[in-house]
């Protein structure tokens, strides 16, 4: 199978401290891959390597390859800004800009000049909000401050904001950890729908969630990728005893 993103022998160092050890993982297109593992095992670090969000971290050092559609994103010729427009990110805590709902979604299309005129931009905004399942709730108050939305609505707005630039891949770092069960259910539903069009990678501490929404799961432990495979298989017949221990709740 052709992978959308193919990570090969990735080693990551924060100064002297190594956070990822020789990780190789393929992320299949149009699927959701879940990253699980105990706290501090390097899930976020791994995720942030995929759109070079780590670039600003001082003393960061990286070895190995991250191929997006076959091209290494750490090649010196790669334009980081362009890369991030193809690989979007949704964060743990909803972080809407302190502007109107409309302007939040229009932000990406504006900086990448993805539209011809105002009505085209309106369409992008409507389409993105609809895909994120937020349109009906906000269509009458697009000019209202985004920060006044509820936490769950804010997170869906952030997803709409990421979708609006039409990325190939969307990375999500514990997108539901600040949300209640109902808002979480909405976002899980959304992730399932988005999968057809985007390749999704999601970090989660919720194993049921990983089982519900992902097709592939990767288990990390102390910076090593212990095991990765088809979600159903990994949860029912784990090969490594550390995986077994984690998913049965013996530690983590």
């Amino acid at each position, binding site marked *: 199978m052709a992978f959308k993103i193919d990570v090969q022998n990735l080693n990551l160092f924060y100064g002297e401290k190594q956070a990822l050890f020789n990780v190789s993982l393929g992320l299949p297109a149009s699927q959701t891959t879940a990253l699980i593992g105990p706290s501090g095992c390097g899930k976020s670090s791994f995720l942030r390597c995929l759109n070079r969000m780590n670039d600003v971290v001082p003393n960061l050092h990286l070895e190995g390859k991250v191929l997006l559609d076959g091209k290494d994103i750490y090649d010196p010729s790669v334009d980081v800004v362009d890369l991030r427009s193809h690989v979007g990110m949704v964060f743990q805590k909803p972080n809407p800009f302190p502007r109107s709902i409309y302007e939040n979604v229009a932000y990406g299309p504006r*900086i990448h000049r993805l539209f011809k005129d105002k009505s085209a931009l309106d369409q992008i905004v409507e389409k993105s909000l609809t895909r994120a399942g937020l349109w009906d709730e906000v269509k009458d108050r697009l000019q209202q401050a985004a920060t006044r939305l509820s936490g769950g609505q804010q997170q869906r707005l952030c997803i709409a904001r990421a979708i609006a630039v039409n990325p190939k891949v969307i990375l999500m770092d514990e997108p539901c950890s600040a949300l209640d069960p109902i808002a979480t259910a909405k976002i899980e539903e959304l992730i399932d729908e988005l999968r057809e069009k985007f390749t999704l990678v999601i970090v989660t501490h919720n194993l049921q969630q990983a089982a519900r929404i992902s097709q592939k799961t990767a288990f990390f432990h102390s910076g090593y990728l212990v095991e990765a495979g088809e979600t159903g298989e990994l949860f029912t017949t784990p090969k490594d005893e550390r995986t077994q221990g984690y998913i049965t709740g013996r530690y983590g």
Partner: protein
Amino acid sequence: MRSLWVERCAKVFFFLCAVGTVLISIGIVVSLLGETFRFFARVSVFDFLFGLTWAPHTLPSGEEVGFGAIPLFTGTLLITSIAMAIALPCGTLIAVYLSEYARPSLRQVFKPLLETLAGIPTLVYGFFAITTLAPFFQSLGDTLYITLSSESALIAGLVMGIMILPYMSSLCEDALHRLPHSLREGSVGLGATASETILRVLLPAAFPSLIAAFLLSLSRAIGETMIVVMAAGLAANLTFNPLEAVTTVTVQIVNLLTGDQEFDNTKTLAAFGLGFVLFILTFFLNILALYGIKRHRRIYG
């Protein structure tokens, strides 16, 4: 029981503090108003607010003339505009550089330095500016065949602008640095460049704090009278030409109050009139700023 008693006492104490502050403020306004009314009994409000010549003196007939304050208003406006035209862009740019572009190690050195500089009485910079900058600009003017008097509004404004620069940039830097890191990540994660993030996300988000920084600096600039006494001088010319000498409201207040005149002299009372106008001006400036911030909150949350 004990803690309840303490709470109650604290409450009363803080209430008294709050009431005291308000009462003192009211007292100041009332006394200012009183003196102002006495002044306007001698000089008409119209002559004061719209008169074009400022040269207070008494005619042999005993009539008091020359209380037209317009040249003072224009002088104040001219000098503070020049000062702000320097402090606002430079201050914001310094803040943006330190907060967003400078390496953390560099910021660690420069930020405390800037704060220390901001704490030094601005008068000190003023003195420096007068003894070194003013002659520099004068000689620069000479080479360009422009006669720049050392008392020109341009030099006074420049000095004032440089004087408040450390204060202004330190306040603006605080405003930017306080913004949550998640805002930057959100923008950069969408493929925005650093400059796009600053222009479209960070500066708008910090806008109310930047306005506050601007107003604080402005009032500090207006308050620093002595520097203008030294630089701008006392000539009450009605002009918008920055190369000419002008004077300001605060300088004239000092000028009217110094010397051993009696306290119910018309000149002394005129100082209260000027003070009252300044009060009204800054009052409305603050209301305007509050309104702007409120409006901004409604849009940006």
